[in-house]
């Protein structure tokens, strides 16, 4: 049980800077998820916390204690690797015992811990098998068991589910969440997968290029992305973005470009925007509703568009159309085949608009959202 605190953490490989001064507070018992594009420094940060990489600069605290120079075994952290990294020449039991025997715990304590982990993870039938005799999901559970038996202060996961098929991944994801709830251990989890991030996290840390772009609860990040990058990165399909200018029409602040004008709710934007400012607005696909095909928003702007093509996903249909050159995606909550060329009225939900300053890329409401 411990909080983890990163202060100005930097990682340099030769002359390449992989992590550029990260500040982060992970409270006790919470579940933090790092997301970001490939190469943004997620694993590097995790490995520094694990003690597998030196920290080039900055301070890492676990429970208020600086652990920069502690070897990983003394940090009270346990890690589940993407490849599982099980010891192939040992049985499942020996894999689980390995750390406990090195710690020289007494026999009864070792038995107790293994028994507990094995029960939670339902590993009983496999104790005497070698890792090569297990399925992917079973190996994954052994890898988690190896972390659990150590009773660490912090769990670290580096894309633990990426080697599993979709169905098993969903199942293990739920299992991980349940496990963390039950054990109440501070957890840091790295993933590419948005669904994992949204469902597992108490708070999400969005990284890019060695920096933190935004930290916040899943709902924060989704509803109030701090900048264009986060807006584009979180949410699938991605948010529709249109660049233009803020203008005043009849005393009403509006977004406008050559093809499209939309009023900006003054209760949210009157104080933060001025006419003439270059802005980019964003609408999530579910906030663009084809007329008569879903719950229509109370305040909306209607745009007529010819559907270029559609994707019927079973429980919903994605509609692709263009506003001038920009491709817009609308999510229709009705599964139905839509023919290409069919013309529909699309209702853009004005109350759910996201507005960013084009130049800086930051949300114009950025002082109202948490930024890392």
């Amino acid at each position: 049980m411990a909080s983890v605190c990163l202060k100005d953490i930097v990682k340099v490989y030769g002359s390449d800077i992989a992590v550029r001064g990260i500040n982060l507070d992970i409270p006790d018992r919470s579940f933090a998820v790092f997301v970001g594009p490939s190469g943004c420094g997620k694993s590097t940060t995790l490995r520094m916390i694990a003690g597998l990489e030196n920290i080039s600069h900055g301070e890492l605290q676990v429970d208020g204690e600086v652990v920069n120079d502690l070897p990983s075994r003394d940090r009270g952290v346990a890690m589940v690797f993407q490849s599982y990294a099980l010891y192939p020449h040992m049985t499942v039991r020996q894999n689980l015992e390995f750390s406990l025997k090195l710690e020289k715990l007494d026999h009864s304590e070792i038995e107790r811990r293994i028994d507990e982990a094995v029960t939670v993870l339902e590993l009983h039938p496999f104790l005497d098998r070698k890792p090569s005799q297990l399925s992917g999901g079973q190996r994954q559970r052994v890898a988690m068991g190896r972390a659990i038996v150590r009773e660490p202060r912090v769990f670290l996961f580096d894309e633990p589910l990426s080697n599993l098929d979709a169905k098993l991944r969903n199942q293990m994801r739920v299992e991980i969440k349940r496990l963390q709830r039950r054990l109440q251990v501070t957890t840091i989890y790295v993933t590419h997968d948005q669904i994992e991030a949204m469902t597992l996290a108490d708070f999400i840390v969005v990284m890019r290029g060695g920096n933190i772009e935004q930290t916040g609860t899943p709902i924060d990040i989704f509803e109030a992305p701090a900048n264009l990058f986060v807006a584009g990165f979180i949410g699938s399909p991605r948010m529709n973005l249109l660049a233009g200018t803020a203008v005043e029409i009849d005393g009403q602040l509006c977004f406008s470009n050559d093809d499209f004008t939309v009023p900006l709710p003054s209760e949210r934007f009157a104080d933060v925007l001025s006419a003439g400012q270059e802005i980019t607005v964003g609408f999530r696909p579910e906030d663009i509703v084809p007329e008569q095909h879903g719950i229509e928003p109370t305040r909306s702007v209607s745009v007529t568009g010819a559907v270029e093509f559609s994707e019927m996903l079973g429980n919903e249909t994605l509609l692709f159309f263009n506003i001038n050159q920009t491709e817009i995606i609308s999510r229709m909550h009705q599964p139905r085949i839509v023919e290409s060329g069919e013309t529909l009225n699309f209702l853009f939900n004005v109350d759910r608009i996201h507005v960013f300053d084009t130049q800086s890329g930051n949300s114009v409401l950025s002082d109202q959202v948490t930024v890392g």
Partner: protein
Amino acid sequence: MSNTMDGIDFAAIVDKERASKQRNWLALTAAVIISAVWVVPFYYLAISIFKTTEEYSLNHPLSLPSGLAPVVENAVTAWTHAKMGAGLWNSALYGFLGAGIAVFIAALAAYGLSRIDFKRKNLWFMLIFSGTIFPLQMYLIPLFFFYQKVGILNTHFGMVLFYSAICIPFPVLVLRNYMNGIPRDMDEAARMDGASEFTIFRRIVLPNCWGPITATFLLQFTWIWNDLLFSTVLANRAEVRSIMNALQVFQGSYSSTGPNVVLTAAVIASAPSIMMFMLLRKHFMEGMRVSGS
């Protein structure tokens, strides 16, 4: 959609396949002839040990022996004449200790080269590896004078020292490549589990290297066992003489013992390394496979 395959003449395809198989008999005949040539020396060896010296000199060398009994006498003569007991003991000592120490040290070096980050790693590796690119005979004369000066000529210690040293580079090459193929995640997991560097080596990396370790051990053991040159020069006294060296007594006294005795001695001398191979065959084949687990 229909599943028929109209227009395909299966009979013709079958005939063509068969014809291409039949052409193989030529290759087969060639193979049989070549193997026969290759087998002759072994045949010669196998029949000669069952002949008496007289029988050997009177008949054609490749003729079959008249009985199996003479082999016992041949063996006894060879054993006493060449003091083969001592020779076998010495060679076993050199083989097990020399190859064992060499492979163990090589494994340590390979671990360092594949796992620990230090400067000029490649230079160190090339330095060790350079031990295998020069002809070994080059070391003979300097080594002789050095051993003489230090006083370890004609000692067990000197021989084990030499064999261990000369047998290190090759296993380093093999084991380093093999260890590079063992995922680093595994050592990292062990490190987080609280293992020290040596524990990782002994408990995690070594157990996954048994294949190449037995393979290189076997190769080095056989080389030491069969070495004649260095054992002749560095250890020529009866107490420290290796088995191959011991066989040389037959060179000077050819008249008193016939080729049948010499060949019997050769069979006895090579039996142990063949037995070693049989015993470790499984691991050896594993070690010859390219990839790790």
